């Protein structure tokens, strides 16, 4: 489902530095709330300072991939994604609250190990952060394409095991090979010792 906007921005490439400047300018105006020359001047200086300092992080020189990744982002889905994620967070929070409040506290921790076909680091970080943001699951490690996730109960990781969260993130970043590969559930110390080599 390639939209026209995806192809047009892929041609020119979304300039990451310009995005950063616009973002910082909006941020400054919202925080300061003053539009006189002095305060706006401070803003311009601050933005210039931040852009110069983060040059090596966001500049195309050190990371030519970033502009390419930004060009492939599906912005419509990227706008919807936070709201979807917030819904997931709310639902999972209620589930965790239930686990905490039930006298029997029926938690059953499990480690999940799965691989993702996603290539871009930004997509992997977004997936990792979304997993951690959703209650009941914490990303412990991302090594190459392998995720290690601690879940407080298997049910709270359902969206990871069936791959629906991976599909959402892959959709935002225009990744095609997003299939979750061999999701493994670890529930005992012996297996952890064997697989981690402790």
């Amino acid at each position: 489902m390639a939209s026209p906007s995806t192809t047009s921005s892929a041609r020119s490439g979304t300039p990451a530095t310009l995005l950063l400047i616009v973002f910082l300018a909006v941020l400054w105006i919202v925080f300061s709330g003053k539009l006189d020359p002095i305060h706006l001047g401070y803003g311009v200086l601050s933005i210039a300072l931040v852009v110069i300092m983060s040059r090596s992080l966001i500049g195309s020189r050190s990371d030519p991939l970033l502009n390419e990744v930004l060009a492939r982002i599906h912005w419509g889905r990227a706008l919807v994604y936070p709201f979807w994620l917030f819904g997931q967070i709310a639902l999972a929070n209620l589930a965790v609250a239930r686990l905490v409040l039930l006298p029997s506290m029926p938690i059953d921790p499990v480690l999940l190990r799965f691989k993702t076909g996603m290539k871009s680091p930004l997509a992997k970080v977004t997936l990792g952060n979304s997993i951690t943001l959703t209650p009941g699951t914490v990303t412990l490690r991302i090594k190459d394409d392998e995720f290690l996730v601690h879940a407080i109960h298997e049910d709270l990781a359902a969206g990871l095991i069936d791959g629906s969260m991976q599909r959402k993130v892959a959709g935002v970043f225009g990744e095609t090979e997003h299939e979750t590969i061999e999701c493994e559930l670890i529930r005992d110390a012996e297996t952890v010792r064997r697989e981690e080599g402790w």
Partner: protein
Amino acid sequence: MILAIISKVLLAAGCGFLIVGSLGVNRFPDFYSRTHAATKPDTMGLILSMLGLALYDGINLNSAKLLLIVIFVAIGNPAATHALGWAALSSRLMPWFRKGREPR
């Protein structure tokens, strides 16, 4: 009027989640599960509280500032949580598992 009621409901719900989170830290058995209790309901509690405060005085510039706090927490909190979990894993801290689970 309606806004004030919504605001108070949001604040109350936020506090509820914060209390649940604190309870969870006390009740859960090991570091990893406590990480869940310490960080997740906190995020939710903070988001709800900030939304409540954003509506408290009606919608104005301060509401936008409070919403930005929500965004920063939503990005920063999982990063910090992951750092904790990764540190624990790196120092070979074994997660607690429910007894009776057989090794495969």
